[in-house]
């Protein structure tokens, strides 16, 4: 199939310029601080992983003990990197899809500052030993309040931009965007209320932990995939009906999933069962999205070679399908009996937040950054390197953790096997994980270097990107 022509009418180009210029400063701020948190979070993550291999390394420094580095990693990459970069992408996307400049820009600047201070405060607190020890909610209340306030400012900007839209039809990416900025504040406030105890607190913890994905991170990833796949290829998304089915079944089922983190635990039986059911029902939205994306892309796979955006995005979208089916299976009791409490869960989490979300964020940033920084990516070779380091690294990561986790689970359920043997069994897989972590860290350094070059307009002056020349 021949690629559809570029749309180059002067009016259209001028309109795009107005939109992108309105988004430029806030989006770049969100991106730049996001990339800094990506680097910090990656270092925390790598150290955490190495701690398993060398428990006596740096063992006398309290701030670098495993139990503090791990939450520092989780929070820095989620509330720092993925949230900030995701928010930047959504801003740009909303302006483009509503065909109107970004509104409330002063509030956005305040939002970036507050958000970063919150993450800095929270991560520092965790490292210094003031973390709350409740997974995904470790930040002390003041830090959480800062992030919450920053989010409200961001949400206000998105909703105001949306209100001033000059389009009739609301494209599917907008549904996810608007829904997630409405959902997340409720979720965040409800989960941070300091009123829970005992088993109910456990339920709140995992209701939140899973919903952070369900109502914030996954909608970002899907909004971006729904936008960039058709945008780069230049044809409509395959089916509006699939989009509708996908969105509403997603909204209905996903936020019932959380308690599958407590299967076999001391929470009521019926509660575990409905979460398992909702997890399996996730097959429906995931199938709808996957089919929709696939049928849009079919016949255009050669763009994968020419466009880094599409390459990262399609990789991420495929991993979304994979991680969701894996999650549906994993929630079943038979599977939980083995893999619950093992490294498998960690592999699953990275397949979601990294291979799906982060890769899509990279793809989106490759598209958006030239438009808001007004410069072309300087080194296409380094972009390739970035892709292969991260894609290769995360593949090794997920395979190592999932295989190691299954073996660990079976060994733990073999009651005659002393616990020490279970530890020995996981050792090689944990080393493989650290190795993959080194690849990923390398990829992030490359990306950060490229991004910094974009900010300061370094590298050769180009009017066309090399990969787009090849595609034209």
């Amino acid at each position: 199939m021949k690629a559809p022509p570029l749309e180059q009418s002067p009016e259209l180009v001028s309109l795009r310029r107005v939109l992108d210029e309105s988004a430029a400063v806030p989006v770049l701020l969100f991106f730049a601080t996001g990339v800094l948190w990506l680097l910090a979070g990656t270092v925390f993550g790598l150290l955490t992983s190495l701690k398993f291999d060398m428990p006596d390394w740096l063992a006398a420094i309290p701030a670098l003990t495993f139990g503090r580095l791990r939450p520092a990693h989780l929070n820095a990459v989620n509330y720092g990197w993925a949230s900030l970069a995701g928010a930047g992408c959504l801003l740009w996307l909303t302006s483009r899809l509503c065909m109107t400049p970004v509104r409330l820009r002063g509030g956005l600047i305040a939002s970036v500052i507050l958000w970063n201070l919150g993450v800095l405060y929270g991560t520092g607190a965790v490292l210094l030993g003031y973390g709350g020890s409740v997974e995904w909610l470790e930040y002390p209340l003041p830090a959480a309040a800062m992030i919450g306030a920053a989010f409200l400012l961001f949400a206000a900007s998105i909703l105001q931009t949306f209100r001033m839209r000059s389009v009739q039809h609301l494209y599917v990416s907008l549904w996810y965007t608007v829904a997630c900025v409405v959902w997340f504040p409720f979720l965040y406030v409800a989960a941070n209320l300091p009123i829970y105890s005992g088993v109910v607190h456990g339920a709140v913890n995992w209701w939140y932990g899973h919903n952070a994905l369900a109502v914030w991170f996954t909608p970002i990833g899907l909004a971006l995939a729904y936008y960039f796949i058709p945008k780069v290829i230049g044809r409509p998304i395959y089916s509006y009906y699939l989009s509708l089915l996908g969105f509403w079944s997603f909204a209905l089922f996903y936020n019932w999933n959380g308690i599958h983190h407590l299967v076999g635990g001391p929470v009521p039986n019926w509660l575990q069962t409905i979460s398992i059911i909702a997890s399996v029902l996730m097959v429906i939205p995931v199938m709808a999205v996957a089919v929709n994306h696939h049928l849009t892309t079919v016949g255009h796979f050669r763009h994968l070679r020419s466009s880094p955006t599409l390459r990262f995005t399609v990789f991420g979208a495929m991993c979304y399908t994979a991680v969701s089916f894996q999650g549906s299976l994993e929630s079943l009791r038979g599977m939980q009996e083995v893999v619950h409490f093992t490294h498998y869960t960690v592999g699953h989490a990275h397949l979601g937040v990294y291979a799906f979300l982060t890769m899509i964020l990279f793809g989106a940033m490759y598209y958006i950054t030239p438009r808001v920084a007004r410069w072309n990516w300087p080194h296409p070779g380094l972009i390739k390197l970035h892709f292969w380091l991260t894609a290769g690294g995360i593949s090794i990561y997920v395979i190592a953790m999932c295989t190691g986790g299954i073996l660990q689970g079976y060994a733990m359920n073999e009651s005659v096997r002393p616990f020490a043997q279970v530890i020995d069994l996981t050792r090689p897989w944990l080393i493989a994980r650290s190795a993959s972590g080194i690849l990923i860290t390398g990829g992030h350094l490359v990306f950060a270097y490229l991004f910094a070059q974009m900010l300061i307009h370094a590298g050769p002056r180009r009017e066309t990107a090399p990969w787009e020349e090849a595609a034209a």
Partner: protein
Amino acid sequence: MPGPDKPDRRSLPPLLGEAERQDILQIHRAILSRERVEPQEGMEPAPWWVWVVSVLVIFSMGFYLGRYSGTFSTEAHELYQKAAVGGGEAAAEPPPDGSLVYAGICLPCHQAGGTGVEGKYPPLAGSEWVAKDSAIGIRILLHGLQGPIQVKGKTFNNEMPGLGNQLSDAEIAAVLTYVRSNFGNKAPAVDTKQVAAIRQATPGQGPWTAQALSGVPK
């Protein structure tokens, strides 16, 4: 509000000269001209099998709900307990497995293979105390042991907690039997009845000392 022909200068780096600004705008225009149409929605019907699979999944989960929802109470484990009773496994309690008790309780101190830890935890492998009359081992497990003790020619002076509150008579017999017939030890098995008898005969007993144990009635 900047219009199409009035670019928003505020978003340009302030220190640039006019020529550089123009150049950047030129590059920006080039970038923006390389775009394809904004995404739109196609109106193809969803493939039929998507609906079929959806309906099948919903039905099977309805079945799952009926099968596994329990009694809508705060019971956390009723399903598993039912399964265990129904399976006939729990009907007659199986005798405890000594190796499991060892791995679960003794291992952190006496180590795999019963080697112990130099200067802290005495070995069980080849220990004369293990090989002695079973009445001694039973007492150590029931009430604990403290003070200096000679094991295989080395002196230890530490404290072993009593485990009588935690382990049943059958478990104590099983783990002692396991220790006495493994790690190179070859002493006869221990009977649950003997454990019960000693438990009966020594209510309120505190930790033993090596000396006190040497004088216990056979």
